[in-house]
């Protein structure tokens, strides 16, 4: 049971890293996610059903997500519409495309067929099945995290971070911001689709509605993570995203299984997620104001010390 929450949270965390890249690093409010998550699930499922092999299936899911990201970024760049609208357009179109990928159905099962999650118990035979699934998922998340950490330390990765912080600076440094946005959005949605591809295998089916409300859930996980600790280092930021994703899934689990004590039904969870995001925003704002006030006080104190020090020097002279 408990292992299940962790597996769920870890698969989800790859999606949240994707949302982190668009919302936090690129500062691009992207809704493509709700579509590309299901695209990843659909592509991986159909690939597996058609016998491409598991690695190829995940690779195809990853690439399909990247294409979705490129489409959103291109709509935004070329038509000069806000990112939000570009994302909604892609997401809407993806809904039809996902059903096409699933062969005209809204739901395709992965029954009696080998998936990563039927394989993990064979790869790790020394532990019980739930633990084997957990170890396998942990391994995948670890690899993804390490690759992302390295990517955002490369020159290209750093410039994508700078773009989200200050677009003018990127232009001044002779870089085409449009190209960077395309690359960043491709990576973001590729990870989101990869996560969808894993979830389909874990739960044993792909569903065209799988992505509904994903963005907000991702934001909730990011914000929970941000409460844990403060850092500007990418390795710690991705770590806290993963922890946030697991905590979010655990909270939702609690809501689903023990919520009936307070008359909560599963359909209330979206409402709870939204409230969670709003509360996080309020707390973050209060904290921000407090730390600004604190910084101002510190600066004043430093100034005073400096003045006193220089007065003393003058006195000595």
């Amino acid at each position, binding site marked *: 049971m408990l292992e299940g929450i962790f597996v769920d949270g870890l698969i989800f965390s790859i999606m949240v890293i994707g949302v982190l890249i668009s919302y936090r690093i690129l500062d691009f409010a992207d809704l493509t996610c709700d579509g590309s998550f299901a695209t990843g699930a659909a592509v991986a499922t159909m690939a597996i059903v058609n016998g491409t092999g598991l690695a190829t299936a995940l690779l195809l899911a990853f690439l399909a997500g990247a294409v979705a990201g490129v489409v959103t970024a291109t709509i935004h760049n070329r038509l000069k519409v806000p990112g939000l609208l570009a994302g909604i357009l892609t997401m809407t179109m993806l809904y039809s495309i996902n059903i096409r990928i699933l062969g005209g159905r809204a739901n395709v099962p992965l029954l009696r067929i080998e998936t990563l999650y039927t394989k993990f118990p064979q790869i790790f035979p020394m532990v019980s099945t739930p633990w084997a699934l957990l170890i396998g998922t942990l391994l995948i998340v670890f690899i993804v995290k390490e690759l992302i950490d390295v990517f955002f330390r*490369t*020159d290209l990765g750093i410039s994508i971070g*700078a773009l989200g912080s*200050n677009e003018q600076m990127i*232009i*001044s440094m*002779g*870089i085409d911001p449009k*190209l960077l946005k395309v690359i960043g959005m491709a990576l973001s949605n590729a990870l989101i689709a990869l996560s969808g591809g894993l979830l389909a295998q874990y739960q044993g089916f792909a569903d065209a509605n799988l992505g509904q409300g994903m963005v907000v859930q991702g934001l909730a996980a990011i914000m929970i993570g941000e409460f844990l600790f403060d850092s*500007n280092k990418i390795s710690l930021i991705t770590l806290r995203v993963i922890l946030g994703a697991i905590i979010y899934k655990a909270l939702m689990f609690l809501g689903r299984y023990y919520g009936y004590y307070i008359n909560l039904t599963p359909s209330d969870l979206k409402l709870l997620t939204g409230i969670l995001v709003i509360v996080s925003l309020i707390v973050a704002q209060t904290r921000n104001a407090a730390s600004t006030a604190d910084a101002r006080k510190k600066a004043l104190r430093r100034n005073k010390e400096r003045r006193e020090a220089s007065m003393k020097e003058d006195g000595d002279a």
Partner: protein
Amino acid sequence: MLRIEQLSKVFYPGTVNEKTAIEYIDLDVRDGDFITVVGSNGSGKSTLFNLISGTYPVTGGKIILNGKDVTNSPEYRRAFTIGRIFQDPTKGTAAKMSIEDNMITAFKKGMKGLGISLNASKRGYFKEELKQLSMGLEDRLKDNVGLLSGGQRQALTLLMTVLSRPQMLLLDEHTAALDPRNAQIVMDLTTEFISRYRLTTLMVTHNMQHAIDFGNRLIMMDGGKIILDLSQEEKHSLTVPKLVKMFKSIKNQEYVSDEDLLTP
């Protein structure tokens, strides 16, 4: 270096908000020129810079940079030649990133690859470069730029701009938002870098004394036109009152000629 021919810019043409910001400007900036630019609010100084850098498309005319017509080339391409610093110290750096990440982005102009250039030797180099600012930034490579003061940020912006090796600098009141002490520091660094790297420079300032003291040429703008262009020799004997008087006499002439036009 830079030649501007019959340049014009009209905002919102054909609407009630139509506004002519630049009116047929011709300007020839020679290699190594350090031109100070003065003019009242709304005279078109920033717009001229925006046109030179490519932030806005021109309405008419040509911009020729190093003999090449760049009138329609995108801003990021012109940035290889032109380094630009704004009045707002937050515009030149990425607040949410560390000093070293900011500097590595500025280190080489152009699209970046998947290499990792930020290593120990680069950090050492950045520290050495930061030392010349005498602001203690060399010990804060990993601090986010958002934690720096306005003066520190503007000095860092200046350093990053020259590290990226432009041939030309456009400075738009880049010390105006700083307190007098920091403004002095940044201005000293500016002149130091300009002469060390032989940067061709255009500098907008509202400080008339600065406009006279710095550079080898002074231009005055008004109503989207260049109304005065003084050479080094002419600047030599210039004082602030003389400059103000020149401005007033030119304005008066215009006023008179406007009247002439209106009365048949």
